[in-house]
């Protein structure tokens, strides 16, 4: 059992300054704190707009953290140099976003294998693992050689999930992983999450699907508690 949480958020605040709109400052979060240990899956809950995605993005590093501390596997994300965050994303922190950023011309199997290639795995081995995962997620072989540009929303989402699970990341962020999936594929994704927990991954996710949440999450953190208004 890990002594320290794999994902640790402490005293994190966030405000957006809109320079193009007269410098308006929009506070969106204050004093956010949570901890996810290895083998645990924690759900972020709260109404739409409460800041669930904002928190995930701050942990991922595409939203800047100016206030507080976010540590992933002991690495401080707040104020980190780009290369530290890139290294974290390469081997430690995985992220399944809601939308696949599709690269033109790159076949689905290569999209999924890419994180393994970046870790230095030989092409054959990386592609074999990608193929196996796409098979599990019911992406037929004829589609695997095509760019996901033309795929349906559900197919793109499954490619995205395969990309997030292809490497055994110790920490994983999931933004609505079961949205737009049919029952069979939803079951596969829940199995993948359960397997990741079993190997000790710390998982933090947004699950609007209450059944899915109940099936894999150990507890929930309501981000409404981190709303700036709550301070007053």
């Amino acid at each position, binding site marked *: 059992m890990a002594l320290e949480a794999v994902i640790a958020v402490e005293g994190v605040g966030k405000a957006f300054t809109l320079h193009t709109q007269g410098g308006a400052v929009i506070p969106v979060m204050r004093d956010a704190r949570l901890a996810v240990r290895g083998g645990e899956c924690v759900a972020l809950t709260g109404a739409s707009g409460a800041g669930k995605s904002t928190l995930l993005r701050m942990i991922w*590093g595409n*939203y*800047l953290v100016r206030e507080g501390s976010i540590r992933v596997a002991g690495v401080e994300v707040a104020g980190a140099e780009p290369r530290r965050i890139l290294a974290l994303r390469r081997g430690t922190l995985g992220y399944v976003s809601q939308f696949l*950023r599709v690269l*033109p*011309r*790159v076949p689905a199997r290569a999209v999924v294998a890419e994180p393994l*290639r970046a870790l230095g795995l030989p092409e054959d081995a990386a592609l074999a693992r990608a193929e196996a995962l796409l098979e599990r997620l019911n992406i037929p072989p004829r589609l695997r050689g095509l760019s996901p540009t033309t795929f349906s929303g559900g197919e793109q989402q499954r490619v995205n999930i395969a990309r997030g699970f292809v490497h055994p990341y110790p920490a994983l962020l999931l933004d609505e992983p079961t949205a737009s999936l049919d029952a069979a594929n939803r079951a596969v994704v829940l199995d993948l999450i359960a397997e990741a927990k079993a190997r000790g991954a710390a998982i933090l996710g947004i699950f609007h699907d209450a059944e899915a949440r109940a099936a894999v999450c150990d507890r929930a953190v309501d981000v409404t508690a981190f709303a700036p208004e709550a301070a007053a």
Partner: protein
Amino acid sequence: MTARRGAPARAGGDPSAQDRPLLTVEGLTKRYGARIGCADVGFMLWPGEVMGIVGESGSGKSTLLGCLAGHIAPDAGRVIFDTRDRGPRDVLAMPEPERRMLARTDWAFVHQNPRDGLRMGVSAGANVGERLMAVGARHYGQIRGAARDWMARVEIDVGRIDDRPSAFSGGMQQRLQIARNLVTGPRLVFMDEPTGGLDVSVQARLLDLLRGLVRGMGLSAVVVTHDLAVVRLLSDRLMVMQGGRVVEQGLTDQVLDDPQHGYTQLLVSSVLQV
């Protein structure tokens, strides 16, 4: 295969090379009379990193690239490159022959207009082979073999090896320029609007190709562009310039998704979607 070929060049055989920056830029300044070209620019580029530089026309990004690559003499500052043989050296203080050798071996420069980076009067194969000969290759069969190999890698029909680039389309010319630049296995590539002037569909193909080559060979690169979609796909890090100064820099997706400076916010909100 690509990765294996490029791997030794990346670390230069020195395990500690990964732990120090490939390029360190300090206080780089260039003035054109009273006008500022670029002012007090500083950054470190690490092995395998791709950095994008964005900004509107006149923001100083091309001046900066020219200063880095040794095409323009800056008024102040240092550009320290971790050379293969002698470790970190100030490029601006190097004797001219040494700097030229660096430009032919470890560095490459991809111009926006392929005509500036190619010799239009000689064949495609000669364009690629010439750069190899400049670093001492003499065996005709090997040079031609390397030219064929590189034409295939940049997706140009090898059957056109004896055609002049003037008979190629714009996209093919740009891919040929890339082959000519990468054939010597450089460690640092400068690119000035590499997809500028090309049709959108051709741009996508070129970007995908560049991305594969850069990642596969473990190259470090500095890419100047005004196209935010290009940096989103190609670069790990991003530097935003306005009026010759760096107003913001950071991880590419952070700068694009959560821009801090007013100018960057304007830039990001001005495009349809990146």
